[in-house]
């Protein structure tokens, strides 16, 4: 059972970078959906999309802002984890490139994690694991998706790159995690071609009918019903199992930040857990589904200025492509939340 707890690690700050370009779904005509029914069920009115900036670029811009706002010395940052499904290159790891771009020490631990909507929670545990022993004192978690391998606009998804700064602090309250995986659902959300299993070929660019949508084999495709059923089941279960295992009342938290999948799914999860709407902020109306950036982006865009100084209890929960899921319980106090970075 993948339950983890780390002591002596605190969240120091959050920042998120998004493209300036706002696309609206209000004028869309997406096959069987009208604009109004699409917006009503998904909740996604606008999203940010760029054909220029990668997840690495968006994270880089957010990191520069957050490091400046924290007043951190870059030489002190000894670990960087980058989580994305749209890395800058097939190789090398984007985390290596970001070490150099940011001017971090060459004696820095860097690695990429290839995860989507659950990725921020996995990244948090990876970084917390590096910090908990005190071997590394300051670290950055970067997560999100930006420009794709080929350009296309999916009305549900948006681009964003988030940075979460964490540091070693003796006596910091425990950061608690629960994780799960069901690889039998690997094709519920998939880009079929371009990896080693199905290599690039001329056929990769030929649109084919996927449940009424014409998609190439380099675009992500989703079995919507499978993902929906998975999310409404494992979202609530993750929160309940985390609380049961660590012996706290899940109802007794200040904020619940769920991965921003779509409104229908998120509201189903919220009502199943009987959580009041004011404790469950959403940013999907303005940014769409931003994969592994969605949890920190919700904190930055919806809670900035409301909680930074006081002791605040959070539950974060991500679920999606893999299929993969995770939940985290953590507290913040005196943290820095940078203004949304738009590039």
């Amino acid at each position: 059972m993948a339950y983890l707890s780390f002591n002596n690690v605190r969240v120091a700050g959050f920042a998120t970078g998004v493209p300036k370009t706002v696309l609206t779904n209000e004028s869309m005509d997406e096959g069987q959906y009208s604009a109004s029914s699409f917006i009503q069920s998904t909740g996604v009115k606008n999203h940010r999309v760029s054909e220029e900036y990668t997840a690495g670029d968006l994270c880089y811009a957010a990191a520069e802002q957050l490091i400046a706002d924290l007043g951190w010395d870059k030489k002190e940052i000894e670990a960087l984890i980058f989580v994305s499904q749209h890395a800058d290159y097939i190789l090398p790891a984007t985390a290596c490139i970001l070490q150099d771009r940011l001017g971090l020490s060459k004696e820095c631990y860097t690695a990429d994690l290839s995860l989507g909507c659950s990725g921020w929670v996995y990244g948090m545990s990876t970084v917390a694991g590096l910090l908990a022993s005190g071997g590394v004192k300051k670290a950055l978690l970067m997560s999100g998706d930006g420009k794709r391998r080929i350009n296309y606009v999916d009305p549900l998804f948006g681009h964003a790159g988030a940075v979460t700064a964490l540091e070693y602090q003796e006596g910091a309250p425990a950061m608690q995690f629960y994780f799960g995986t069901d690889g039998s659902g690997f094709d519920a959300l998939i880009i079929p071609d371009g990896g080693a299993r199905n290599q690039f070929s001329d056929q990769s660019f030929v649109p084919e009918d996927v449940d009424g949508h014409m998609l190439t084999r380099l675009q992500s495709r989703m079995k919507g019903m499978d993902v929906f059923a998975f999310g409404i089941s494992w979202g609530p279960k993750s929160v309940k199992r985390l609380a049961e295992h660590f012996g706290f009342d899940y109802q007794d938290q200040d904020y619940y930040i769920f991965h921003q999948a779509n409104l229908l799914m998120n509201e189903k999860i919220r009502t199943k857990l009987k959580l009041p709407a004011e404790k469950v902020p959403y940013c999907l109306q303005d940014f769409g589904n931003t994969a592994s950036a969605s949890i920190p982006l919700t904190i930055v865009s919806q809670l900035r200025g409301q909680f930074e100084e006081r002791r605040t209890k959070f539950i974060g929960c991500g679920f999606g492509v893999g299929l993969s899921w995770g939940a985290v319980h953590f507290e913040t106090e005196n943290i820095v939340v940078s203004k949304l970075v738009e590039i």
Partner: protein
Amino acid sequence: MNLEEFIQNFAEQFDDTDASEFKAGTVFHELPEYSSLIALSIIAMIDEEYDVTLKGDDMKSAVTIEDLFNIVKSKQ
């Protein structure tokens, strides 16, 4: 689980279709109001009421409401 109750729960996911339309043998894919959104509501209802996580293929392979009832029952 009981078929009558399942049909009632199933019918509650529809707004405009008359309750008398829902019978064990109703071919639900052919109901004019049936859509992918209604399918999601049905999946959510089954998750909540019967603690069963369906897949899209289960919804597609069921022809009648009773077929879906039997799929849910087999997964309990």
